[in-house]
């Protein structure tokens, strides 16, 4: 006996696919460089908003979006590896990947905000870092965090392929529709993550992004752009 449940709530799916598009766009703009670097910075800040959203949603979202429901504890991992884990949502190994992805993306965004490409781009928080060699290190860490992201994404996509081919399970469709057919015995009611919580979380995430762009001026006023009326004569 199978029933269909809403395993991934709408905000989680919206987060996931927005993140996919944003990461691809961030990669393309960084690779092409030039004037697109300003867009790279804006996209990075959008990703900041997405991450803040997801971190909060991990506590106030619906059942399978909550971190507590899939946190990869040792007993859960052990049970999974012995083939004795039969629940819904992220499996413990997948959950490890989820947290690794979130942590690495946070590092990527955090360092990116404080980075410069030493050409004509500075992240919105770059001016807050006063130490020259630290600035260089943060920019370098940004590049390394991206390389690590590629490794994680390769694992992510390979796992989806593994489930599709070997375990005959389509993981992509539920992430699009939110719906999944599950054995009735496993189906517990999905709760939480209503529209009020959704909009509140969006507003908080938006406020953080605004703070990073506009708020930095409140902490440390950036010298206003010089407006030379004439070119200096010497």
């Amino acid at each position: 006996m199978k029933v269909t449940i809403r395993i991934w709530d709408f905000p989680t799916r919206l987060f996931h696919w927005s993140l996919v598009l944003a990461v691809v766009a961030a990669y393309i703009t960084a690779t092409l460089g030039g004037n697109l670097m300003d867009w790279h910075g804006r996209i990075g800040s959008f990703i900041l908003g997405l991450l803040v959203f997801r971190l909060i949603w991990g506590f106030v979202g619906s059942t399978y979006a909550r971190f507590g429901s899939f946190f990869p504890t040792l007993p859960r991992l052990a049970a999974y590896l012995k083939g004795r884990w039969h629940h819904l949502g992220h499996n413990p190994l997948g959950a490890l990947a989820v947290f690794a992805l979130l942590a690495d993306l946070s590092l990527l965004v955090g360092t990116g905000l404080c980075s410069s490409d030493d050409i004509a781009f500075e992240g919105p928080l770059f001016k807050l870092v006063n130490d020259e060699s630290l600035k260089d290190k943060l920019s370098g860490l940004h590049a390394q965090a991206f390389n690590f992201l590629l490794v994680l994404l390769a694992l992510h996509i390979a796992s989806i392929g593994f489930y599709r081919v070997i375990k005959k399970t389509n993981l992509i469709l539920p992430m699009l529709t939110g719906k999944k057919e599950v054995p009735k015995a496993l189906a517990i009611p999905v709760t939480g993550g209503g529209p009020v919580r959704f909009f509140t979380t969006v507003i908080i995430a938006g406020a953080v992004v605004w703070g990073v762009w506009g708020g930095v001026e409140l902490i440390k006023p950036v010298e206003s752009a010089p407006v030379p009326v004439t070119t200096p004569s010497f």
Partner: protein
Amino acid sequence: MKTKLTLAIILATATAAAVAGPVEEQIRFRQSAYSFLGWNTGKIKKQVVDHPETFNKDYVAAAANAIAAVANSGLGELYGAGTDQGIGWKTSRLRPEFFQKKDEVTVVANHFNEAANELAKVAATGDINAIKTQFGKLGETCKGCHDLIRIKE
């Protein structure tokens, strides 16, 4: 009199050649060159991209001319043997592969020179949109060298 003048010219040339001498000196000169470039690209970015309402044609043209002048100064001379190791104003970030990749470096470095000269030309017209486009192209050529031969910290 003429002999003296010739002698002076020869001496001056010899001194100029000697300037790019010790490793540390070469590294210092090139680090200075790039930070001077950074000052000038920063000026253009501010007036052309970030705050176009402050655009001042002469100010931007002066910055573009300075960039072109640095590009045309023959920076390649500052990349002598052994200059991947050493401290100028700070430790050099030149990758040792530079010396095996000289052909590729020549290509990207020439792109930079062309883009810088074009920017100076465009800046002279005062067309802010054209300057912005060319400024972006210049940035891409900077990235060419950064990706190829610069150590990511």
